[in-house]
């Protein structure tokens, strides 16, 4: 391993502050293009394989149609507005469940990570619930919440909440004790300690949990929508699968993958922003 060179990112000074926070900075953009350039080849190989394998008969084309055919089906579904309608519904369900999970898990995780008594009291319960498949709870959800939206949202909530919770706890526990000591010496209230010391330290871990949670919420929408839904991308996939319309089925799955992929990178960008201080801390080090 030889020395890494400083990567120059020539940014006009101060620009970052003038720009609304939600817009990526030029250097972020530049880096994104760099990342895409490097990341694309592997993806292209995968895509090529998908196209070629069924065509050459390596894999049965009836059940695994070539990419081009899937994309054609996707095109049709987009053109007819079908996809947009169903995706909208599914995303709403996943988003509500996920946001509920964030709202519940992060405060709970902060408390469980910080106060060992609180953790000990609740940990068994949390671990029991966490280790109970949501599949198993489905009848319970239905009995309690019915088969309407509430149940579907409960499932996406349940799918995400433990990822966020566990990673928040881990994040809290890995805060440098010296920083807590320093903060406490400055008379920081418990509330400020959470907001200003523990949370910033725990962000990377929490975001990792959120990335897992987003994916899980999204996937569980499929499961939830197979349960008595007449709309949503899960319904669409299920229907196509039943009818052995594999091109439409994979079109739906591909759509979900792309959505998950985009959300993932949105979270990664958020994390990069939130941990700017950490980025390339060993710049110039090999």
């Amino acid at each position, binding site marked *: 391993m030889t020395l890494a060179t400083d990567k120059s990112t020539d940014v006009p000074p101060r620009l970052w502050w003038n720009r609304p926070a939600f817009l990526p900075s030029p250097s972020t953009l530049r880096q994104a293009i760099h990342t895409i350039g490097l990341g694309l080849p592997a993806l292209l190989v995968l895509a090529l394989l998908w196209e070629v394998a069924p065509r050459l008969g390596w894999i049965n084309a009836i059940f695994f149609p070539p990419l081009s055919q899937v994309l054609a089906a996707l095109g049709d579904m987009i053109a007819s507005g079908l996809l947009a309608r169903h995706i909208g519904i599914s995303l709403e369900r996943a988003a509500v469940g996920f946001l509920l999970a964030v709202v519940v898990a992060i405060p709970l995780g902060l408390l469980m990570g910080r106060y060992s008594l609180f953790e000990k009291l609740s940990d068994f319960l949390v671990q029991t619930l966490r280790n109970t498949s949501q599949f198993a709870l489905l009848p319970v959800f239905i009995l309690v919440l019915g088969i309407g939206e509430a149940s579907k949202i409960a499932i996406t909530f349940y799918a995400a909440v433990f990822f966020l919770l566990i990673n928040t706890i881990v994040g809290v526990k890995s805060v440098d004790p*010296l*920083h807590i*000591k*320093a*903060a*406490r*010496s*400055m*008379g*920081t*209230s418990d509330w*400020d300690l959470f907001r*200003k*010391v523990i949370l*910033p*330290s725990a962000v990377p871990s929490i975001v990792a949990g959120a990335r897992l949670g987003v994916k899980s919420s999204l996937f569980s929408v499929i499961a939830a929508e197979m349960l008595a839904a007449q709309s949503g991308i899960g319904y669409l996939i299920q229907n196509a699968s039943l009818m052995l319309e594999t091109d439409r089925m994979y079109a739906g799955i591909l759509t979900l993958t792309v959505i998950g992929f985009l959300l993932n990178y949105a979270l990664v960008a958020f994390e990069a922003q939130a*941990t700017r*201080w*950490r980025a390339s*801390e060993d710049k110039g080090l090999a």
Partner: protein
Amino acid sequence: MNRIAISDVRKTFQLKPGQSVVIDGHASDRIPVLSGVDLDIRKGEFITLVGPSGSGKSVLLDIIAGLTEPSSGFAAIDGHKVTRPHQETAYVFQQYALFPWRTALQNVEYPLEVRGVGRAARRVKAQHFLSLFGLTGFEDRYPSQLSGGMQQRVAIARALSTDPEVLLMDEPFAALDAQTRDILQSELLRIWEQIKTTVVFVTHSIDEAIFLADRIVVMTARPARVKESIDVDLPRPRDIEIRNSAAFNAYRARVWDALREEVRKAQQDWALASAYNA
């Protein structure tokens, strides 16, 4: 009334499973660090604390700061037993303890922020203290982008920014170059003479201890007690030149005398005289 009263403070650390220490010939899993520290500090007094490395100076500051609970005895500020960090106490740590996710300015703003000082006011104040320590232009730098000495100066600025009544400083100038150190010593005295904060200052430099103090407290080797308390009767304000005075030299000898035996004790089983086998 005394601002700080330390009464028979003892502290014993419990070692982790599997660790042990040999005390008086038999193994134990508890290590006594402070064994009855008594110390009264007047309001506005400037105390310097010297003692061998590992004697328990940092632990004592932690106890005064309300960050560590003594095993027995207590520390009190203004007659109230310390059980948690006191609003009017500020602490400069031996290891800087800056928040790496905050810039220099945001680090200095931090204690003002948690006290609810408004955005504009705290920014002005923080900038003032940064400039006081020669860090103008480095406000938006993260700690990892600052040199060791600069980080330590940010930490001092942070402690002073709240105008604390009790200021605990653990070797704050150890990472500074000689002249900066001299300047900051003088500057600290000047500030202190205006606000008459009560200061407890740990240092390894005997010169620094004498130059700054109203009173030098010499600690024994671990388990530590107060060995000697030396009043420094040098006129104030003090000039750097005072170090060449005969009176200063006399103090130097006295502190050295008090310390020598303790340091020797602390090094009892050092193998420093052993031959080096390369």
